[in-house]
């Protein structure tokens, strides 16, 4: 009886002793956390791990070229919302549900699949198959200068109208001899789409309709484009069409913007005294509700097993993923600043007792609970379609005819969409 319990509670971690696996990783805070711990995994399993880490742009190119060339790649990081369709169709993603439920390969109770947030895990599914395990969960939050909101008695926006009012109130207002900007957002074409999507959904719009045709020219979608463009044109920074996240977060950290809407991970920037002038002055909340409700997106990085690796290497890589996404490791990376994809990390006393920004925690958790995992257009050629949508955002910021621009973009999108 005792032995049965031991067998159920644990697996043979050394079953692939001597196997060598090669992993391609993005230079992400999670990688920074896990890389120095590799000797622990190698000691535990006897598996030899080669981990190659590249900055994001090179990482994407390298991953694509290596997988296409058919070289030895056993596992890699992937943002499912960006690349899963392409990689799945190319046969580069191994389904993981078989491993997850195999008691010989997975310490089912200890690993605890149910502990992962459902939204991000759903994002890493395709055609009924789980193709990745989330290593972080990302949602966007409205971050605002709580010191100024309190000083001027401005209500924290709960609706889109209130958001516009607050932006209008602060824009060009001179505070402590500094002229303020109402709100800063990404305005740079394709890069802006990953934040714009929250507005699109909350205004009742969508990328595509039920038939899979472009829906970005629908009345609701057009309203979202108009609102987003107006915020930046009338209450945003000068030159917003060139604003990527780096420009937008810098403007906020410089103390010149009253609000910013961007990924929750950037809290680590806003609250970093070496880089930011607004440390301790920032409040966090979910996206304000629009006519379509409050519908933020939720995205994530995941660890995947290459569909082209040998079965033995695939299983050895699965052991690595299981170890890297254990409760202990996810909590460790969470405490080092990576928003965790596991609920237990957020409830852990080690985090709760040291949490200096409970409103950020609440905002993030609320967003994960209602987050939409489909944050990119549901197509194979995501980058190309994001470029097309990005043009409408730019046109809207520049004050051009949004309805016409969206109509032209929808036509082009229908022509170019690959599924």
């Amino acid at each position, binding site marked *: 009886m005792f032995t049965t319990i031991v067998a159920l509670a644990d697996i043979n971690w050394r079953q692939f002793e001597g196997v060598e696996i090669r992993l391609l990783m993005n230079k992400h805070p999670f990688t920074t956390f896990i890389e120095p711990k590799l000797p622990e995994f190698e000691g535990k399993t006897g598996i030899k791990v080669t981990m190659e880490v590249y900055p994001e742009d090179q990482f994407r190119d390298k991953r694509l070229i290596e997988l296409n060339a058919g070289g030895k790649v056993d596992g890699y990081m992937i943002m499912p919302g960006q690349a899963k369709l392409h990689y799945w169709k190319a046969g580069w993603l191994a389904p993981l549900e078989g491993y997850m439920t195999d008691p010989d390969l997975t310490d089912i109770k200890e690993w605890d699949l149910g502990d992962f947030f459902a939204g991000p895990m759903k994002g890493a599914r395709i055609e009924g198959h789980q193709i990745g395990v989330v290593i972080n969960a990302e949602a966007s939050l409205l971050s605002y200068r709580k010191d100024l909101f309190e000083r001027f008695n401005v209500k924290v926006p709960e609706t889109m109208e209130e958001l516009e009012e607050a932006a209008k109130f602060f824009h060009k207002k001179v505070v402590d001899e500094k002229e303020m900007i109402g709100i800063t957002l990404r305005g740079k074409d394709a890069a802006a789409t990953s934040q714009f999507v929250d507005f699109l959904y909350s205004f009742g719009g969508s990328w595509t309709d039920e038939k899979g045709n472009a829906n970005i020219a629908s009345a609701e979608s057009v309203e979202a484009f108009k609102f987003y463009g107006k915020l930046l044109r009338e209450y945003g920074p*000068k030159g917003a069409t*060139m604003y990527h996240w780096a420009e937008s977060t810098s403007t906020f950290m410089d103390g010149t913007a009253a609000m910013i809407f961007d990924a929750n991970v950037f809290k680590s920037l806003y609250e970093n005294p070496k880089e930011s002038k607004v440390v301790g002055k920032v409040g966090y909340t979910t996206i304000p509700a629009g006519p379509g409700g409050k519908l933020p997106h939720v995205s994530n990085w995941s660890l995947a097993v290459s569909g082209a690796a040998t079965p033995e290497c695939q299983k050895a890589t699965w052991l690595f993923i299981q170890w890297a996404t254990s409760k202990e490791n996810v909590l460790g990376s969470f405490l080092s600043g990576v928003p965790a994809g596991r609920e237990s990390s957020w409830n852990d006393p080690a985090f709760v007792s040291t949490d200096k920004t409970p409103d950020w925690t609440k905002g993030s958790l609320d967003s994960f609970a209602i987050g939409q995992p489909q944050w990119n257009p549901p197509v194979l050629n995501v*980058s190309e379609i994001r470029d097309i949508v990005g043009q409408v955002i730019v046109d809207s910021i520049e004050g051009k005819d949004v309805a016409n621009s969206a109509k032209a973009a929808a036509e082009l999108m229908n022509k170019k969409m690959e599924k």
Partner: protein
Amino acid sequence: MKKLKENIINFLDNHMPIVFPAPAMITLFIVVIFPIIYNIYMSFNKWKIGLGSPKFIGLQNYIEAFSDPRFWNGLKVMFFFSSLSLSLEITLGLLIAVYFNKEFKGSNFVQTIYIFPFAATPVAIALIWRIMLNPQIGVLDYFLNLVGLPGSLWISDARTVIISLVLVDVWKWTPMIVLIILAGLKSLPKDPYEAAVIDGANAFHIFSYITVPLIQPVLITALTLRSLDNLKEFDIIYTITQGGPGIASETLYLYSYKTAFSFFNAGYGSTLIIIVFLLVLLFNVAMNKIRYRTEGP
């Protein structure tokens, strides 16, 4: 053994014209000729990287290009950017070279300083220009405001982005043109100038009736050299705007890069780059024709 050695030496002796250039020719074939041929072959194929093998589709990619609004936009941007920057670089280059050609105190020092932009790494200077051109924090707007002029959105406005990029290109590459023209000016004969002075010609006459006609072959060489790079300008545009806002500064060359490496359409991307290649070739054939006409083959 000895015989084999002799045979090898004999073979080498008898085939020297083939053997000696062979390493260079093989390298050239691998790194230049093969990729071009493969590119031409790919341009007749449909191939999404990762999804199946290339499929031959004949001229379909070329037909698609001509009905693709983004292709025409790329062509327009390329034409606008190149004609503006090349003409400014040649004009300014000539004027500055004529000025530098005179002896003045500290001329060597000024000339050395002036070479700096040309010697700097394009990506590094482009990153700095990107910050300077930012209307929110950039120094250019600050200077405009200092002298009482309204600010500009520079690269953030579709209407001014190309002019802003031309500004950077002119700043970076005019020194190269100056160097080439200066070398040409130094080798010009003195007699026509002396004759002109005796005849009472003023500085403007000397410049337009003697310097410009004499220096014309050098100008065409400088233009040819510069156009080779300029027509496929990548690093400055990619670093500063990535073709934005939207596609307002996306040249055909940039579009072909994005098509292949962001959209993974290797076939269509090859088609676009072949068209760029043909345009550059055409321009250079035309320039050569003009050069032959002015100075003979």
